[in-house]
């Protein structure tokens, strides 16, 4: 308890991890919520209340914070407020976390004196949630730190979401970009990054493919225009290089509109370790060291390449992959809810009209960025089939989610509705509902439908 003033001072800038792989709430707001549960003394200022409440009820912070405080402080000194590279994230505190888990029962007991039953159970739930999250990070860390990463185990863990701070490394491993063997990892990584930059130099030094370049250069400024990060020239230039190199190296498809969208979850995820509290959406890329930016660009290129390797048919001439998936979606939806499909049919709506984009952009145009990233945790852990076969089940669950609204609308209203679904406020919670339903559909229908492979 002696630590409280120091902890309060530092921990306001720390985050309390959310259970589902998100950054979670800033700890200050968590504390404030805890604080609001306690009887409010009338004339005290907020910080006073804050400290007192923490002292009274928050044994958890007391136990876990000292380590984190130390870490954060030293980092802040070293990196002028920026977090270090994700590769060394957390390795200095993880080992102790095990012993620092909150004793939920004790915590509950310590609150018992306060006559606020609901508040008590809420706080208890939050405490449990944090425990889950911490033990989850610990499980990931154990797999990631092994001399040779057990990819099967990592896949299994990642299926239900990857903790944000471990996402870059996890994605890169599961996509087959990072070597599972820790000894070789750094060397091959450096080689790959260099290879990318050499490739860029090469394609830009030999006459541009004007048509391809034109399409990329008009699409880059239209990439995630609602997110500030993507309006910055540093990011736009990086996107141009990534897309152009990929297009030149994959002449069967070349650049196809929508692929620009698919790079951005990688950019977003790999930049995350460089963001302190705010959202990566508002990050000023000039605050990221140039070398890190170069590395992120190369990593994003290679990960995009791995992703697109599995769905090439979506982007080659006539886009047969998409046509196949749309047909599969319709077939699956007919099994799930014949009435819905019949209603769409009777209104003259074709699946192609609304689900083409779902396939072409992997639902990225339909849900917020954070949701896409969470979906990709699962897709990436599914392996090569994640972005194709499993995606169809996800699209079926997604359509199914709106079925009651759709069933009472006519042609025009359905089209307009499906083009701009009300998902702006969606969080991982909604997405996880969709994913688990998709998993269920897959379990139910996969064996009986070999054609969905």
């Amino acid at each position: 308890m002696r630590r409280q003033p120091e902890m309060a001072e530092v921990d306001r800038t720390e985050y309390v991890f959310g259970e589902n792989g998100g950054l979670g709430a800033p700890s200050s707001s968590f504390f404030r919520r805890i604080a609001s549960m306690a009887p409010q003394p009338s004339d005290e200022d907020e910080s006073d209340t804050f400290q007192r409440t923490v002292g009274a009820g928050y044994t958890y912070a007391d136990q876990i914070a000292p380590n984190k405080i130390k870490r954060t402080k030293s980092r802040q000194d070293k990196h002028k407020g920026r977090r270090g590279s994700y590769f060394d994230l957390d390795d200095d505190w993880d080992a102790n976390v095990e012993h620092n888990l909150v004793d939920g029962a004790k915590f509950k007991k310590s609150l018992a004196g306060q006559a606020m039953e609901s508040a008590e159970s809420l706080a208890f739930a939050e405490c449990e949630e944090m425990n889950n999250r911490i033990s989850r990070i610990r499980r990931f860390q154990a797999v990631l730190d092994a001399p040779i990463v057990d990819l099967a185990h990592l896949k299994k863990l990642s299926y239900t979401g990857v903790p944000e701070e471990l996402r870059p490394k996890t994605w890169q491993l599961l996509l087959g970009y990072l070597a599972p063997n820790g000894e070789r990892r750094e060397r091959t990584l450096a080689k790959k990054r260099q290879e990318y930059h050499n490739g860029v130099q090469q394609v830009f030094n030999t006459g541009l493919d004007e048509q391809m370049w034109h399409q990329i250069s008009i699409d880059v400024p239209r990439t995630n225009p609602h997110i500030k990060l993507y309006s910055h020239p540093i990011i736009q230039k990086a996107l141009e290089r990534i897309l152009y190199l990929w297009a030149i190296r994959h002449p069967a498809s070349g650049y196809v509109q929508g692929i620009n969208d698919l790079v951005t979850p990688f950019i977003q995820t790999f930049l995350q370790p460089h963001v302190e509290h705010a959202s990566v959406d508002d990050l000023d890329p000039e605050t990221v060291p140039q070398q890190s930016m170069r590395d992120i660009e190369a990593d994003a290129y290679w990960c995009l390449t791995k992703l697109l390797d599995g769905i090439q048919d979506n982007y080659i001439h006539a886009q047969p992959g998409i046509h196949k998936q749309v047909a599969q979606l319709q077939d699956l939806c007919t099994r799930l809810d014949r009435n819905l499909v019949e209603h769409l049919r009777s209104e003259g709506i074709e699946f192609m009209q609304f689900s083409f984009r779902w396939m072409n952009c992997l639902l990225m145009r339909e849900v917020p960025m954070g949701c896409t990233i969470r979906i990709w945790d699962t897709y990436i852990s599914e392996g090569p089939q994640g972005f194709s076969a499993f995606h169809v089940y996800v699209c079926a669950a997604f359509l199914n989610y709106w079925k009651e609204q759709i069933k009472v609308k006519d042609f025009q209203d359905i089209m307009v509705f499906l083009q701009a679904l009300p998902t702006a406020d969606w969080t991982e919670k909604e997405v996880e509902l969709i994913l688990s339903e998709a998993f269920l559909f897959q379990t139910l229908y996969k064996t009986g439908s070999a054609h969905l492979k």
Partner: protein
Amino acid sequence: MADEYDFLFKIVLIGDSGVGKSNILGRFTRNEFNLESKSTIGVEFATRTVTVDGKVIKAQIWDTAGQERYRAITAAYYRGAVGALLMYDISKPETYEGVNRWLNELREHAVSQIVIMLVGNKCDLKHLRAVSTDEARQFAEEKKLLFIETSALDATNVELAFQNILTEIYRQHAEQTTLQADFAQIKPSQGQTISFTQQPDESKSSCC
């Protein structure tokens, strides 16, 4: 709004990528211009109802992706379309040069009577103009297309463009109907006359 109309006309928006197809649609159907618009993937849809010669006409407009790769999917939407706005960007000559390719696409996939309007968009970019109005107008005359220059940004001629093409479609339709049955009170139209200078008959847009 009561969804009642006399005629339903399906229109497609085509043209090279980045010429402003989605924004002209946004301007016409929602009176919006979106500086932060994303590229269109596949096809998007919107409607608006206007009045032509006292008849309520519902325009069902399909906005298509401009990139070559999407032709296979977008061409499916030409079926049943009675009108097409073929757009280019007056500041980008290559988008004007692409017009012939689009005409071929229409010839191949759309009905022969489809009414086509050549639309030079972004006419607010006066200092960047690279395609002259006269040249485009002359080309339109040769090809028997309606012609207009618009700006989705400042709304210049957007209403007029749609009003003109819908009027033309309606009149052709009425003419045909007159030939088939006794369709009283409909004046014969000027046929395929290039009517970019011709104002629609005092008709006003009625809603949205």
